[in-house]
């Protein structure tokens, strides 16, 4: 998922491309959040969400930015969806599935009575069409569906998915928003026409989009969860100025403020009529080390760097204390995260010790790529520069336009660089393949890190269905990756939302999405 500040957008797209940004909402009915002490849910009303950035497109198959994804998920829903804790999936438009003994055939049984917002019943033909279209999106999310061999629709309520090989993450992949269900043949339109006013089975239906101003959705009267959604309309307004968003929330013009500034979190927590919530996210920030630069190919140097960085100083400086030091490249909200993984933490003595064991005991000079004008990167860069200076590593900043920062990283035209990852699916495979497999498109997060055992375990985990066995494999991967210090894992940070105390049922999932059908306004 994506970023909070426009200036970081390009950096994030980095991750967004391979990591993808998005996810789907999970949650069974009545899940979490907001204010839960206001009694029975009330129908009606219009909810205004002030958000920090604009949507790009409603094309679920190709769009990568979260500001689009979080809205289109209110319209188009998948067969399964992410659970509220982000650690698994729950049935959604499918009520159940069975898996063949060779683990290569998934048979989904669709939930009866599901209708599109046009009133037309959803059938297996719609499901087959929707997932087939998502698979074809070579410039979009198709790469997550590559394990799928073909899809059949033997009867209106059954969908059969054949995989090319046993593939443990399939359910998580099916739950991706890109595999959301739309009417077969886009209801007779071209894809381009259809996605200007998409139709789905979700709690809300399309009203209009005034580019750069607002997107308005209306209640879907045919929604399959009886009695939901509660709201008549939801409006996402683009208000990029953080002060104005806060004032509009306080003034009652908006009910939800997306991503208030970190520095205002404490103030908002103490503002009457306002709820300030930090929802656990899957965002993990890293410092990448390009192993094509000789000193960084030395594991002792990388370990020294990892030990030298004061994560808490970064958390204080950038997040105003609202984060946690990362011990793994996997975040706590992803399945198979190992809380005991020995991610190298701040230890000045060990940093010096590792440097003395390296081929560069007297230090060296290294360039650090910084997005020009990106305040957070500058703050982190200054801490990195100061801390590495203590172990003899001279850090020289190389500021570049944020728009080319990721391109430079992709092309290995950097030595040290900053990036982050957020999860799109409730399975670690997407992240792990991206991060530690040098043969993947991302070449181990663009570091060229290559540990044959880690790669072997990664691919074994993809085909292992036993939870215990998968956990063991991912524990080994996290432990080894941490010891190899292929990146410096920096910190985990939450999603931050401020909302009126009249808002109830608002809950943000670790994948960043939310389920508006559960949200209601008290009078």
């Amino acid at each position: 998922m994506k970023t909070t500040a426009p200036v970081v957008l390009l950096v994030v797209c980095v991750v967004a491309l391979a990591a993808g940004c998005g996810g789907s909402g999970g949650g069974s009915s009545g899940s979490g959040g907001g204010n839960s002490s206001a009694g029975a849910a009330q129908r009606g009303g219009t909810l205004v969400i002030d958000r920090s950035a604009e949507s790009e497109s409603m094309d679920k198959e190709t769009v990568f930015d979260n500001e689009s994804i979080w809205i289109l998920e209110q319209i188009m829903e998948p067969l399964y969806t992410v659970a509220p804790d982000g650690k698994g999936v729950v049935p959604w438009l499918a009520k159940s599935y069975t898996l063949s003994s060779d683990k290569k055939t998934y048979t989904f049984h669709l939930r009866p009575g599901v209708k599109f917002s046009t009133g037309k019943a959803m059938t297996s033909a719609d499901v087959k069409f929707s997932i087939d279209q998502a698979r074809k999106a070579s410039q979009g999310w198709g790469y997550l569906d590559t394990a799928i061999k073909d899809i059949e629709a033997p009867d209106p309520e059954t969908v059969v998915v054949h995989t090319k090989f046993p593939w443990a993450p399939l359910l998580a992949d099916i739950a991706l928003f890109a595999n959301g269900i739309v009417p077969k043949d886009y209801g007779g339109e071209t894809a381009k026409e259809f996605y200007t006013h998409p139709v789905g089975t979700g709690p809300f239906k399309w009203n209009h989009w005034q580019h750069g101003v607002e997107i308005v959705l209306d209640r879907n009267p045919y929604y399959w969860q009886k009695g939901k959604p509660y709201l008549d309309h939801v409006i996402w307004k683009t208000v990029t100025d953080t002060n104005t968003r806060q004032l509009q929330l306080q003034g009652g013009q908006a009910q939800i403020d997306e991503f208030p500034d970190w520095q205002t979190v404490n103030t908002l927590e103490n503002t009457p009529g306002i709820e300030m919530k930090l929802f656990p996210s899957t965002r993990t920030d890293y410092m990448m080390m390009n192993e094509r630069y000789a000193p960084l190919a030395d594991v002792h140097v990388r370990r020294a760097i990892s030990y030298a960085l004061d994560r808490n100083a970064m958390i204080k400086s950038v997040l105003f204390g609202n984060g946690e030091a990362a011990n793994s490249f996997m975040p706590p909200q992803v399945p198979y995260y190992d809380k005991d993984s020995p991610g190298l933490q701040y230890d000045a003595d060990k940093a010096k010790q590792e440097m003395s064991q390296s081929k560069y005991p007297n230090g060296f000079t290294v360039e650090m790529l910084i997005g020009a004008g990106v305040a957070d990167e500058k703050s982190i860069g200054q801490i990195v520069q100061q801390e590495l200076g203590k172990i003899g590593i001279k850090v020289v900043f190389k500021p570049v336009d944020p728009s080319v920062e990721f391109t430079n990283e992709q092309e290995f035209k950097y030595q040290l660089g900053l990036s982050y990852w957020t999860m799109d699916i409730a399975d670690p495979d997407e992240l792990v393949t991206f991060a530690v497999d040098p043969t993947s498109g991302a070449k181990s997060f663009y570091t060229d890190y290559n540990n044959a055992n880690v790669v072997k375990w990664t691919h074994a985990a993809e085909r292992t269905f036993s939870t215990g066995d998968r956990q063991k494999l991912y524990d080994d991967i996290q432990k080894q990756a941490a010891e190899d210090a292929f990146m410096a894992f920096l910190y985990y940070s939450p999603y931050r939302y401020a909302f009126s105390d009249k808002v109830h049922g608002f809950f943000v999932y670790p994948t960043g999405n939310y389920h508006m059908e559960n949200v209601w306004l008290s009078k």
Partner: protein
Amino acid sequence: MDRFAYILRRLVQAVPVVIGVTVLVFFMIHLVPGDPARTMLGVHATPQKVAALHHEWGLDKSIPEQYKLFMGRLLHGNLGDSLFYHVSARDLIWQRLPVTLWLIAYGTVLSVLIALPLATIAATRKDAVRDQAVRVVPLIGLGFPPFWLGIMLLLAFGLHLGRHFPVGGYGDGLFGHLNSMFLPALTVALGIAPILIRSLRASLLQVLESDYITTARSKGIPERRVLLRHALRNAVSSTVSVLGVNIGFLVGGTVVIEQVFALPGIGQLMLNSIFQRDFPVVQGVTLVFGIMVVLVYLATDVVHSLLDPRVRFD
């Protein structure tokens, strides 16, 4: 030279300025670091897409040829498609333009409504307490940056002293616009009014000491009539030029004010488009801003010529 010929001459003089603006706008694309096509298409771009955009923009051609192509499209009203929204940049700008024009017009009217009485009060009682009081206003007004002033007005009149005005937004219908845009227009006005007050006060003081004013007074014409009919018209002439220059600056200044007040005008569109690397839209808005400034200066000269016939013969 009659009035029509003067206006025509000024129009002709504006043409090279507009051409200069187009040249600047054209070269903006060449200031983007790296390959502009790749930068604009982002990290998802395939080599085919990059090549297609190169061809579309003629980036594989020489600079003069590229400019010729750019102007050819421009003369057909084609600003290209937004890379972010995939819709016509011209349509995006066209939808947003009324908000910015409203802001500029409303702000200008308010600034005149503030400046005219204050300057007149100050000039008619030179060095009196009320003159000193009015002379302090510009110092305060000019000292506050618009973004800060805007936030303070929002806090005061949108929140803490009662919710008299909406906290941002454009509003619906004439009354809605007048209501919603009052605070942003006031922010604009408070930025311009101090300059107008200073200019108008100085001009009025000068004019009020003229022989013809003394003559008018000696004829027994009431002071109010002397001031409004005889002095103000002459004094206001130079202030119109000052106002014109400031509206010119204001056109660019709307970027900040639209951002603070969440107004969906072309200033906000430009800022967001910069962050989104949506260069066709940035180019389009820059062009529109440039043309607006030229038109404001042209209108200023025309009004000036109507108020002071001497300028038509220079």
